[in-house]
Structures are given as C-alpha cells and as structure tokens.
C-alpha cells in the first residue's frame, strides 16, 4: 500500500478517495480543485445539514447542547509583583519584590524575580547582566533559562561575556520568536554599558504607581528652579545622575508606597546593584499583609 499526502491546507473542499480492494488498499489524499462535479456533489448531498459532500473534517468537538466546545484551558496567569530599574552614573540597580501570588492567595513570600544571567557557572558569580521578569512567572523563568543559556553559549563561542547591548538585542529576538504565543512578562535588563538607554523604568502590577514617582524624583519632571521666572518662563531643575544611596532610598520608598497601595506587592524587596566590581544582592523586608 502507498500513501500520497498533500499536507498543505487547502481551502477548496478536500476529498478523500478511498478505494477498497480485496488485495490492496490505497489512500490518496488530494486537495481537489473546485470543479463542476464538486459543486454538484453539494447539490446531491444526502446530508443537507452538512451542506456539502459530507466530508466536514473541520467539525470540532461539540457540547451536549450541540454548541462548539471551546478550549477551556488558559495557558496564562498573572503572578503579580513589581520590578524597578534605575541607572546611576556608574552603577545600575535592579529591584523587585519577592511575592508570588495567584488570585488573592500568596503562593510564596520569597520567589525572586530579579536574576543574574550569563555567568559561567550555575552560581552566576561572574555574571555582569541582571534580568528582571514580572508577570506570568512560568514564562518568566522559561525566558530567564533561555537567555541565560544563550549568554553562556555566547561566552563559550566568543571567549568574552555578552555586552548589555548585545544581550538586549538578543532578548528582543527571543521575545519576538514567540510573537503569536508570547511570553507574558515585562522583561528588563540591567547592567553597565557605553550607552544610556533609560534612566529608570518600573514594571509589573504596581508599575503605574511607581513610574510617576520616578519621573519626578529621578528625572525631576515638573520641578523648576525656585524664583527662576513666572508661568512658562520657569527654568527646569537641572538633571544629574543620582548617587547610589539616593537611588537605594528612592527604590525603597517606591516599593514601600506600592506595597501600601497594591495587594499583589509585598513581603520582601530584592535589589541587585551592578557596578564595575560585580553584582551585590540585598534583600530587605517589607510589609506582609
């Protein structure tokens, strides 16, 4: 017996010619061009309900009421939490809370969402890049594992760690590869580079609570030099990179504010401080209610 199959999806009515024979059986699957005969088949159909030559292979599973049954499985969920990154002159701090929620329940009070990537070992001691992922945690850890592997392979092939710029570009292609079944995460990369991408960015559940505060306190938006003029003549307060203690204070205050006003944020604040000497990690307690 032989099987010849055309696997292309055909919009014209595909007809299966099945010939039964005492000694051999042959199954030919050929998308048939809409021909007068095929149209006639619809006319002669013995099953008018199906409105065609009775080969509706696209018919889906039905409920008991005869309605089409939809997929009930939802592959996504939201595990809450918030992340925040601020770049200083010669350092970057990536922060995130450690609460992991599902609905109104707390799954874990200590589930970090800020990770070192691209180190040579599992302990990530010599990593230079920090990734934060916030949203659907399973996608987040899958994304982290994939990016980490890619960074490790890059180091193996090129004999040097990946630059933040290269890593960001690669991260965007990884995310776009799943354009039609996306990773449901806000991903941020932090590190040191020659470029300045963004001064600061907040993401996740309380991103909208934190970001306006950062606009004001990091980029001095809507702040003016006192007595510099009236109305539109006011001179904007000059921007300058913040010092590390200032940034740490702003991050702590931003999260304390978010914990107070958002139920999915809390438990502990994890901070990764990236400097040219390496990455320091700190965990500070926050309200658990």
């Amino acid at each position: 017996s032989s099987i010849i199959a055309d696997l292309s999806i055909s919009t014209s009515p595909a007809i299966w010619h099945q010939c039964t024979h005492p000694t051999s059986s042959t199954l030919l699957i050929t998308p048939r061009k809409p021909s007068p005969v095929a149209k006639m088949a619809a006319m002669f159909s013995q099953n008018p309900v199906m409105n065609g030559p009775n080969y509706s292979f696209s018919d889906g599973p039905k409920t008991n009421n005869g309605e089409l049954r939809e997929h009930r499985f939802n592959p996504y969920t939201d595990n809450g939490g918030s992340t925040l990154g601020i770049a200083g002159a010669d350092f970057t701090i990536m922060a995130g809370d450690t609460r992991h929620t599902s609905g109104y329940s707390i799954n874990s009070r200590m589930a970090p969402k800020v990770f070192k990537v691209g180190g040579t070992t599992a302990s990530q001691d010599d990593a230079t890049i920090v990734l934060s992922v916030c949203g659907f945690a399973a996608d987040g850890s899958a994304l982290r594992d994939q990016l980490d592997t890619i960074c490790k392979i890059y180091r193996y092939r090129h004999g040097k760690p990946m630059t933040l710029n290269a890593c960001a570009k690669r991260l965007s292609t990884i995310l776009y590869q799943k354009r039609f079944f996306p990773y449901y995460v806000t991903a941020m990369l932090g590190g040191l580079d020659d470029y300045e991408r963004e001064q600061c960015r907040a993401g996740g559940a309380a991103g909208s609570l934190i970001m306006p505060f950062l606009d004001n306190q990091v980029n001095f938006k809507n702040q003016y030099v006192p007595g510099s003029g009236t109305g539109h003549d006011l001179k904007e307060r000059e921007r300058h990179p913040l010092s590390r203690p200032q940034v740490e204070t702003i991050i702590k205050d931003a999260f304390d504010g978010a914990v107070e006003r958002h139920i999915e944020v809390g438990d502990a604040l994890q901070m990764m401080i990236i400097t040219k000497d390496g990455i320091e990690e700190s965990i500070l307690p926050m309200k658990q209610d």
Partner: protein
Amino acid sequence: SSIASFQRRQTSSDKRHEPPHSHPANNPAQDSAVDSTPLHTLQNTMDHRPQAWGRPRDDVYGAYDASFMNSNGPKQNTQQPIVTGTSVIAVKFKDGVVMAADNLASYGSLARFTDVKRLRPFANSSVVGFSGDVSDMQYLDRHLTDLAISEAYDSPEQPRLSAANLHRYLAKLLYRRRSKFDPLWNHLLVAGFDDAGEPFLAAADLLGSTYSSPSLATGFGSMLAQPIMRRHVPDEEAARKLSREQAVDIVKECMKVLYYRDARSLDQYSLAVVTKDGVELKTDEKLENQSWAFAERIKGYGTQTV
C-alpha cells in the same frame, strides 16, 4: 489491472444496486457487458458516485459523523480534569519534610474512589504529592517509574536526582505540556532535599508555575491549611527550629480542618515523612479527635428552639 478490475466490479455493482439520486452521467458504463467477477458483499452498501466514491452510503448507514475524523479541528486534549484529587499539604521541619494528602479521587461531587494513594515516593529520597486529574497523575507516576529505573541503571547505589532536580524536571515537563496546549491537569508538591542537603519543598502546577516556601498546599489547602501552617512556620528560620513531632501534628491538624470544610475531602489520608534516612509513607491514616458534639445544640436557622 487492479484499477481495471475495480472499475469492472463497480460497474456491475451499480447495475445491481443503483444509489438514489444517481446521475446518468456518473454511470457511463451502466449498460456495459456483464462481469463475471464475484461481488464483494460490502459493495452494495458503498456509494459509487464519483464525488463520494467508495464510502458507506448515507441511506444505509446514516450521515457520516464527522466528529470521528477531526484532522484539522480543535485539538481534543485534556480540556478539564475528570477524576480529581483535592489538596496536598506539606511543611518543612529541621530534618526534612512532612507531606499529606487524603485517599479520595472524586468524580465531580461523587466521592468515587476512596483508596487512591496520591503521595508517591521517588528513589526513597523524595516524595511527590499530586492533586488534580488522577489519570494525569497516573501518567506521571508511570513516567517517574521509568525515570527511576533508568536512573537506577546509571547510579545503582546513590540516587542522583535530588528532590530539587526532580522538581525542576517535573516543572519543565508541565511547562512543555502547557505550551503544547495539552496540559497535565495537576498541581503537585515535591518534597525531599536539595543538592546542598537542606530540606526542600516546592510546587509546580499545570501551567509550569513553580514556587517554594517553608509550607505549601495545593487547591483548597492553599486557602484553609496554609494560614494554619504559616502561623507555625512563617519563614525558613522557623522551619529550621521545628521538630518532626510538631510538623506531623501541624499537618494532622490541617488535614482535619480540610475534612471539616472541603466537600471533596476524605477522613482517610496518606502521610509521608522525608528525612535523610529515607521516606516513611503511611497510607492508611485516619483523622482523630473530630469535634462534632456542639452540633446537637444547634437548632433551626434562627428563631427555632426545639
């Protein structure tokens, strides 16, 4: 020649048993010469018009049920759990982990199977507790048996896979299946030790979500048992101070609360204690000291006194 003989046979069959509505143009050889080939009995019940060639005739067999041939329709993977197990609860203590789950597999609201063991030891060093769909649990159980056997070939003396390794393996498996839109409808807890030899407890669910905590519970347990366990073990520090007896007492208390308030629970349950010495699994535990005496004082829903 086989095609020729087929056509010959078909012509004669058409002659004998002409399908309804057959168009003369479709049977050009209707009045051809007589064929001496014996007929296959099925041919009388087959449709021979070219547009529906050789398939069973609708007027003999009824309309074709297309739902049997869903080649390009929606996938028919697990859409919902059918036979289910309820909560699994577990708490870490200083020398290991205690885990419990009742022995019930429900069929909707019917308490259908009352002797289903939902805790599964692995390599005498870890325990996996399953809630959710029981057939998917059995699939994973077989999968883990295969894994244990192949691991035992590679390293017969000392198990290579710690509970942390096992948890990661299962989480990847679950995430892969959810990404194929064909989930294993389970929420599971893995207990044992990590690679550093510390007590390990972590959860993984049908979406591939993973998390770890000093105490964990799935399903109803996350709402009823977790608050009780967290009161005793709020953090890792408290878990490092907890004795085995205390941990077992906490878990038993939680199982009782779950039996009071979870309509899909049972008073017979399994209890596993994982320590460095191995897994101690008891599958026929019964709830003790239930408090129902107060019920006879309750009458009516308001003003009734008798």
